[in-house]
């Protein structure tokens, strides 16, 4: 089964260049339907107001961190099934375990290639479909 490339992906990162990096990598994987948010709070607003199929979020952001966003999403009746990929800088054990416990769909460690990103997305989407 091929993953639907037209799903809408929301990139959440406070660093604009980083959002662009991820956008470019997604494009290489064929995903072009992309929205951006600069922190957790902005992302949550978008999630509540627009149809989004997938969230890629940074861990460390002002206002609302990635973990807080994840918790808010999982606690929200409409959004709790949302596929959520967490981007972290290092495989810091505490961070990742905290994210996993909070119900993250998967995590990815910076820097990553388009292939790895693609793989992670496909894996999540497939397991959701199964």
């Amino acid at each position, binding site marked *: 089964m091929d993953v639907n490339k037209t799903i809408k992906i929301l990139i959440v990162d406070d660093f604009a260049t980083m959002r662009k990096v991820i956008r*470019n990598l997604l494009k290489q994987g064929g995903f072009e339907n992309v929205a951006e948010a600069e922190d957790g709070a902005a992302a949550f607003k978008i999630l509540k107001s627009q149809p989004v199929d997938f969230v890629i979020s940074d861990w460390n952001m002002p206002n609302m961190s990635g973990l807080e966003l994840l918790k808010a999403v999982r606690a929200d009746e409409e959004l709790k099934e949302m596929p959520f990929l967490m981007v972290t800088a290092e495989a810091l054990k505490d961070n990742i375990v905290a994210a*996993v416990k909070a119900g*993250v769909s998967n995590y990815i460690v910076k820097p990553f*290639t388009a292939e790895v990103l693609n793989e992670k997305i496909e894996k999540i989407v497939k397991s959701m479909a199964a």
Partner: protein
Amino acid sequence: MDYTELRREIDEMASSFLFLEKKEIEIPLAGQFLNQLEDVTKRAGTLGAAEVKRLAGALSQLLEKVILEGVDTEKGYGLFERGIVLLQAVADGYCNAGRYDGSVDGFMGELASCMGTPLEAEPSGAQTAAPAAEASPGAEAAGKDRVQDESLLKDFITEGLEYIGEIELNILNLEQEPDNKDYINAIFRPFHSVKGVASFLNLDGIRTLAHDLETLLDKARNEALAVTPELIDLILDGSDTLKAMIGQLRDDQEGREATELIDTSDIVRRIKLAEQGADLPKEPKKLGTILVEEGVINEDELQGALERSQAPPSRKLGQTLISEGMASPKDVTRALRKQAQQVTDSNTIRVDIKKLDDLIDMVGELVITQSMIRQSETLKSLGDRKIVRDISLLESITSELQRSSTVLRMIPIKQTFQRMSRLVRDLSKNSGKLVNVVTVGEDTEIDRNMVDEIYNPLVHMIRNAVDHGMEMPEDRIKAGKPERGTIKLRAFHRGGNIVLEIADDGRGLNREKICQKAIKNGLISPTDALTDQEVNRLILLPGFSTAEKITDVSGRGVGMDVVKQAVEKLRGKMDIQSTEGAGTTFVTSFPLTMAIIDGMIVKVGSERYILPTVAIRQLIRPDRAAYNCIVGEAETINVMGRLLPLVRLHTLFDIEPVNRNPWEATLVVMEGEKRSKCLLVDEILGKEEVVIKNLGESLKRIKGVSGGAILGDGNVGLILDPEGLFEMAETN
């Protein structure tokens, strides 16, 4: 005890595990397991089911490891499955019999060995998957993403520089509230973001430096490191280097001449040293430890050799090792060199200020004792030459000791000034104003204890000067002033105080506006006739500052009244001079508490007092004609054409003097903050360097007296405060 809930939860885990795809990890399910295991651990803890608790704890560690890709998924899951089955059996035992008769040790051992295999070799343990993830895919990305790199690089340069600018501002906040985690986080984040993008763009130098700085800050955030001024300076230096590196990228991009490659080795080394400062003792490692670390000998051999070298005839460890052939001379010399290196790495030590205070106090006691011995009549009557010589030697040694111990705590104001200059630069950059900083008197020394105390008030005055004093460049040009403003920081000693001046050449205070505001806030009435000086001082009143004053730079709307209070708490004084259109000068003066001062010992009647020499202009015995006394007015003395008020020390302190007539006594011309007066004393006994001693809480606020000191003969003399004396004379 009810184990059914526990049992039910474990069974639930077992059944959901059955449906798990065993080849690949499913993160969401793993998360569920982790939460369940945590729950089981807690429950087992309260029920007292030790084996269940132990097993569940170990299983969640295993699972974490699988999640972090520290253990092969299939192998990890295999173990996990067996663990769950065992957990079920143990829970069964507790359920039926209240205990478990078998042992979980065998399985726990297996678990430990699985988790401890090569993958555990990564020393920190916290970063298990990081190196693999960073190394190979990053390199792969290089070729592929070259095309998109160009535009990304440009974005990175702009945004990166912006972010680092943010760091600098936040650091200034942190400096004032070193414990504020929000500020640490605000500084941490930009480094983190810069590092993240740099890793994608293969900018290794930038990534490494940002990473090191981030690690340092992380330690500060977790309180493994204290936020000291040194740490802050280091972070600032680090962000400067980072900025320079990104700046170089920009030059490179814009095709400008390549500058010399920036050397980061020094800053990286300093960061590493600072990091170690937290968890490593400062004292150099022992020779044996170094040799063990180098793998020359092992721990047991070291212990043996240590014992043997201590046994008589005692020898050095190195000699024992060489003579017994356990280490080659080359190994030992290399280790010794390494040890010496460690010592030179830290040629300054940090000492608790309390210890210094104690030392200085004890030296004070020593001086008294020494002086008592010197004046002992019994010793004098001996007439022994040798004793006289020895005592004078003792005297010179004690005074040298006193001098050097007092100086220990005095530091030049330079460092504070440098920080202030930096603050001005950052503030001006942020507000779009152009400001130069000029410093005068950087070498003026001040007690270390005072440095910290005066810091906050100074910061506020600087902020005020940049925020409200300085005009925008275009306004300055319109006003016929140079585009670039100047803030002058000046420090000097005056009247036994250290005076710090912050002068700007900005717009100055607007009399009209201040009066309006003061009337509006009910501080003065419209009919009050105030001098310029009085008007200026209005801004120091509580209730003058309003919320309007808050800007994004000042942050909090702290008014000048708060600054004034802070200064006064330090027994300092504060004043403002201002000329509209030409600038404002804040003048603060602080006492040099606990510092040495040069004192003039004067005698009045039978009492002796110390006058700070810095406040003394002249010593005179005037002609009778120079003395004027108008009935009902103050007495004055004509000192070289100037009429100065006469202050009689004996009247102020109610002492019976030897001389009442100025032309028979001695007059000390003293300079206060703004005015000079003549002080009438009986005679001058001499000049002496004295250590100011606090008079203690209860006597602290006596007017005219700033402290006490131990005189050369061991007696205590009071140090007089000229300004206080003047005030006493004026109110009498």
